[in-house]
């Protein structure tokens, strides 16, 4: 019930291409879905987030698509760059208007080939 399933585990994309990472959840009580980016030796950093009452959110080259009925959401990175190479975690929480633990997906290691 509390799990967030993420795929793929690793992804290689050519520079300029579109990177797509998919996630699915079960608990309909989740009301906040952040994506985190993590570089080696660093803590995760918030990249972009969405609430379930919105189907899409775009910030620069990063877009979250959200399908509430299917309980799925995805991250799209347009015009992928070598600097985007990192591990990406989707996540879910009940952290809107209150403190809440984050349930993380298992992570996707993204490599962008120059």
């Amino acid at each position, binding site marked *: 019930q509390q799990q967030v399933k993420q795929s793929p585990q690793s992804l290689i994309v050519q520079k300029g291409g579109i990177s797509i990472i998919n996630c699915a959840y079960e608990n309909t009580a989740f009301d*906040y879905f*952040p994506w*985190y980016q993590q570089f080696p*030796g*660093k*803590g*995760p*950093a*918030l990249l972009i*987030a969405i*609430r379930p009452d919105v189907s899409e959110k775009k910030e620069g080259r990063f877009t979250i698509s959200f399908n509430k009925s299917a309980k799925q959401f995805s991250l799209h990175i347009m015009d992928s760059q070598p600097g985007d190479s990192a591990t990406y*975690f989707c996540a879910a*929480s009940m*952290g*809107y*208007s*209150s*403190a*809440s*633990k*984050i*349930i*993380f*997906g*298992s*992570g996707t290691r993204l490599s962008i080939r120059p």
Partner: protein
Amino acid sequence: GAGVSQSPSNKVTEKGKDVELRCDPISGHTALYWYRQSLGQGLEFLIYFQGNSAPDKSGLPSDRFSAERTGGSVSTLTIQRTQQEDSAVYLCASSLPRLGSSDEQYFGPGTRLTVT
């Protein structure tokens, strides 16, 4: 401004010893979280503190793990009688939850614990 800081950055300890990990949250943040990141287990929640409320300890894996937060600021995670399976990166995060806003958590760089 200063982010979340953690110390030490690396800790090597012998099996059976106790360790203390420290977290300094962002000034003014009322919520503080501990997570653990290990190979094969991903990122898992351990415990969080919010203001003066009782902490949510639901993620602590055993009674060897405990945490406290003094004065609503600095937190210490203590692992007693360490085991090899405790080897992981321990991450601290802090946030300022507000009504009508998402709880954006800011992570520190982590403490890498190795139990030999």
